[in-house]
């Protein structure tokens, strides 16, 4: 058998198919990415001397994690943490209370078109604005303190919960709701017995998740003067008290882990 025939039988060598099939698009994207990265890195101004000086301090910070100081500013940490927790709970509760009617309004299958558009508008606005920017405006309007943080987080909660709740209502089983309607129920009874039982597990799960997010966010709102543990953390960094800062960060991580674990249990239970 000649070698040409053998090659024919073996066929071409297998090559891995490409992720993007169109070669022009693929090479265009690769080239574009390379040019962009080069441009971006070119415009990056780095003061290497300052960085190398800072690395010593960075090492001190890493070392501080080995010996966090919970006691020296213990009172401040406790106050800040309590305020963060209070803002988290209050804003989550109020956020849920407001987002339920807005969520109902933003579901196309139960709300008339004008209500739907208004509610979707509110949701879009709330989602587009960054929490920190809202917090800055709220601090400017309502003054320093936890009230500004509370309003910010409530507002942010509305965008998150209403959107997901509305999507869940839109995906619900129509048959159950129609059955309730057929018994001659009023609108409220219809929502209460036909819609609510279908979306309740998910609503509880999302609320727990949002509680978790709100705590994380409340930890940074203090940076712009909206109360909570963020203010304490900022002060610690400003004074280069890395051991206190490490302690605060460890507390935040531990709390978030705990909340995530708890919300996981609750979500597993209701779903």
């Amino acid at each position, binding site marked *: 058998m000649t070698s040409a025939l053998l090659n024919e039988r073996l066929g071409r060598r297998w090559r891995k198919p490409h992720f993007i099939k169109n070669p022009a698009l693929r090479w265009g994207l690769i080239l574009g990415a390379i040019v*962009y990265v080069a441009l971006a890195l070119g415009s*990056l101004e780095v003061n290497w001397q300052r960085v190398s000086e800072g690395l010593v301090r960075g090492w001190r910070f890493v070392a501080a994690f080995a010996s966090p100081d919970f006691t020296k500013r213990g009172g401040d940490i406790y106050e800040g943490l309590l*305020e963060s927790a209070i803002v988290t709970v209050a804003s989550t509760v109020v956020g849920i209370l407001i987002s339920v009617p807005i969520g109902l309004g933003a579901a196309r299958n139960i709300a008339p078109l004008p209500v739907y558009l208004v509610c979707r508008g509110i949701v879009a606005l709330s989602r587009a604005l960054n929490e920190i920017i809202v917090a800055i405006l709220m601090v400017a309007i309502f003054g320093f303190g936890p009230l500004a943080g509370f309003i910010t987080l409530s507002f942010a909660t509305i965008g998150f919960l209403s959107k997901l709740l509305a999507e869940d209502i839109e995906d619900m089983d129509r048959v159950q709701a129609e059955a309730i309607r057929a018994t001659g129920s009023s609108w409220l009874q219809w929502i209460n017995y036909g819609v609510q039982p279908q979306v309740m597990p998910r609503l509880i799960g999302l609320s727990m998740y949002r509680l978790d997010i709100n705590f*994380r966010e409340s930890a940074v709102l203090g*940076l712009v003067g909206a109360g909570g543990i963020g203010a304490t953390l900022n002060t610690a960094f400003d004074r280069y008290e890395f051991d206190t800062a490490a302690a605060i960060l460890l507390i935040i*991580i531990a709390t*978030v882990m705990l909340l995530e674990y708890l919300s996981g249990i609750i979500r597993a239970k209701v779903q």
Partner: protein
Amino acid sequence: MPILDSAGQKTWQLRNRNEQLVRWAGWLVGVAIFMWCWQRISEATTWAFVWDAPRIAADMASRSWPPRWSYMETLWAPLWDTLNIATIGTMLALVMAVPVAFLAARNTTPSAVFVRPIALLIIVSTRSINSLIWALLLVSIIGPGVLAGLIAIALRSIGFCAKLLYEAIEEIDTTQVEAITATGASRWQVMAYGIMPQIMPAFAGVAVFRWDINLRESTVLGLVGAGGIGLQLQSSLNVLAWPQVALILIVILVAVVVSEWVSAKVRGAII
């Protein structure tokens, strides 16, 4: 089925008496906690400022309108920086997240007892600390500038990307991996030909999704000195130049909407 029997009249009820009592007690505790939180917030608030809020808000609005459009010239450079922070930060995060994800996924981790918990700890701790706090930390270590923001975004995104990636890795089709293994492929070849092609779509989706979030977050990093458009926002706020603040907020809003649109388009094209 719980039925209330009063004077021979039978009425259907959703729950029996004990269930109702437990629920009622639960609600009582919940409301009490909320009221206590509200009281604490109220104590920490200067209500005179709050009652004055509508006037202040109207005043701020009147002073910030019309926005100072000519200020846009100085905003292009920080906007470019913001884009770079988000994009390069996401790239760095992905580079670090991929190994973490492989170490965290149950089916690819070298050791479920020793390595997996460490990978999970990395995921949780980077995820629970907000990028603004990372930025604060990095600014105090390596000095203010774009680099601090870039690293802050990268560190913060590791957890998010690695979590979504390792969930994708755990959900892969094992028969394909087995087929590759059966050809006598090495561990790395199995990864490259059996696992990577399966998670590529998830990887691209996560990258774009996180890029969208990072662009939002990088707009405010400047508030703590980590570069980008937030720096201009901070300096405009400090001198109470409200027309400039209004323009910056509009620019941020447009950037967020555009990034969301791009991310939705790209994800739509992939999935």
